[in-house]
């Protein structure tokens, strides 16, 4: 289990993480989403023991990861720019990691090499970005970690490899209670994979919940009236976004359909229809509320 409490990290004047709280259960997949510069990568690096927190606490299985080989042996971090030495190949990297990682498995290494089409003797830095990511994944999975931290892993992977990755993760989450924290901008992919979503902006958690209740608690509603209406008619309804065109309003609501629908129907609309939001739409809506939206950053 990962327990983060009051975590703060600054770089000179920039506060990358601001008194962050987060708990991650074993055998779960948590998606970290957020604006660029929101703190996702910093958080993953603190979990991986790359950075030390300035204040607050981070515990993995009850211990701090920084300077802690025991915990680090249970974790693996795949960075958005995976690091390799200039003459690294899969073969010589495996030879090194075999010695470093307590749970390294030859069997898994062979299996992953068979699944991802990479030449073991080829210099990794000569490969394309996508192939380098695949190489990093092969190594990561072969260390058989309990905790896997992935930063922007889907970027650069083709659709076939993405499916292979999702399948491998699904298998391990079930078989070994693997815990995954994955930062991504690819919200479409995260929807299939995650149990929980944590949205970060300016180092703070804006929203953190399980993905199903996130879907249940947002709706977009199109509501039309035969007569012109004041904008104030929605004052008692949990509207977080309004887009008006004549007598038709496109609303984004935060709340359960059974709660707000009666309120909307009481306004006697000519028609009304409700639809769930995609994760991307939830993200944009929450970011608008936090003041980060297409109208303000252009």
């Amino acid at each position: 289990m990962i327990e983060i409490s009051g975590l703060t990290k600054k770089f000179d004047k920039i506060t990358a993480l601001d008194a962050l709280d987060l708990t991650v259960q074993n055998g779960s997949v948590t998606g970290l989403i957020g604006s660029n510069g929101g703190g996702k990568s910093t958080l993953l690096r603190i979990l991986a023991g790359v950075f030390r927190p300035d204040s607050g606490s981070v515990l993995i299985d009850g211990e701090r990861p920084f300077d802690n080989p025991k915990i680090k042996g249970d974790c693996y971090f795949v960075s958005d720019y995976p690091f390799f030495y200039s003459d690294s190949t899969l073969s010589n990297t495996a030879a090194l990691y075999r010695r470093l990682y307590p749970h390294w498995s030859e069997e898994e290494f062979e299996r992953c090499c068979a699944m991802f089409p990479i030449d073991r003797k080829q210099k990794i830095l000569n490969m394309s970005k996508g192939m380098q990511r695949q190489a990093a994944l092969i190594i990561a999975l072969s260390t058989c970690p309990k905790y896997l931290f992935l930063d922007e892993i889907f970027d650069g992977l083709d659709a076939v490899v993405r499916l292979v990755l999702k399948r491998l993760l699904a298998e391990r989450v079930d078989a070994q209670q693997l815990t995954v924290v994955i930062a991504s901008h690819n919200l479409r992919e995260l929807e299939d994979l995650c149990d929980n979503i944590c949205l970060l902006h300016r180092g703070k958690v804006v929203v953190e919940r399980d993905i199903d209740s996130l879907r249940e608690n947002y709706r977009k509603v199109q509501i039309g009236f035969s007569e012109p209406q004041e904008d104030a008619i929605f004052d008692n309804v949990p509207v977080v976004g309004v887009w008006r065109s004549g007598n038709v309003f496109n609303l984004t609501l935060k709340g359960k359909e059974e709660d707000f629908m009666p309120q909307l129907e009481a306004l006697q609309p000519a028609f009304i229809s409700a639809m769930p939001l995609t994760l991307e739409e939830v993200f944009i809506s929450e970011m608008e509320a936090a003041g980060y939206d297409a109208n303000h950053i252009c």
Partner: protein
Amino acid sequence: MFQINTASGVPIYEQLIHNVTRLRDSGVLKPHDRLPSVRSLAVELGINPNTVAKAYRELETRGFIYSIYGKGSFVSERAEEDVTVPQMAALQSFRSAVQQAYKERLSSAQLKQIIDSIYEGGRQHD
């Protein structure tokens, strides 16, 4: 065995529940047939196994499947009083249509006329 539509907006675990109940109601899945394991289904579809587990738990709560520890999950027998999923969907559509008619100020007599004509007409063809 199952199909999901990741773009539909319907939560994946709900889609799985619909899939299983539809196969069960139509007789494709017979009582005591074994369902795929949580892991194999998650792997096949490339989705989170906790999502599959959630769907299976819900199906078990509804009595559509049962589990034997160490062996897997199996389709349960249908009770005669069960309303099938297609029947429930038809009832729901009917209810919505009646609500709409009510809003449009149609009389219940007009609606009953339609019901009678369809059921009379149906009887003539049986």
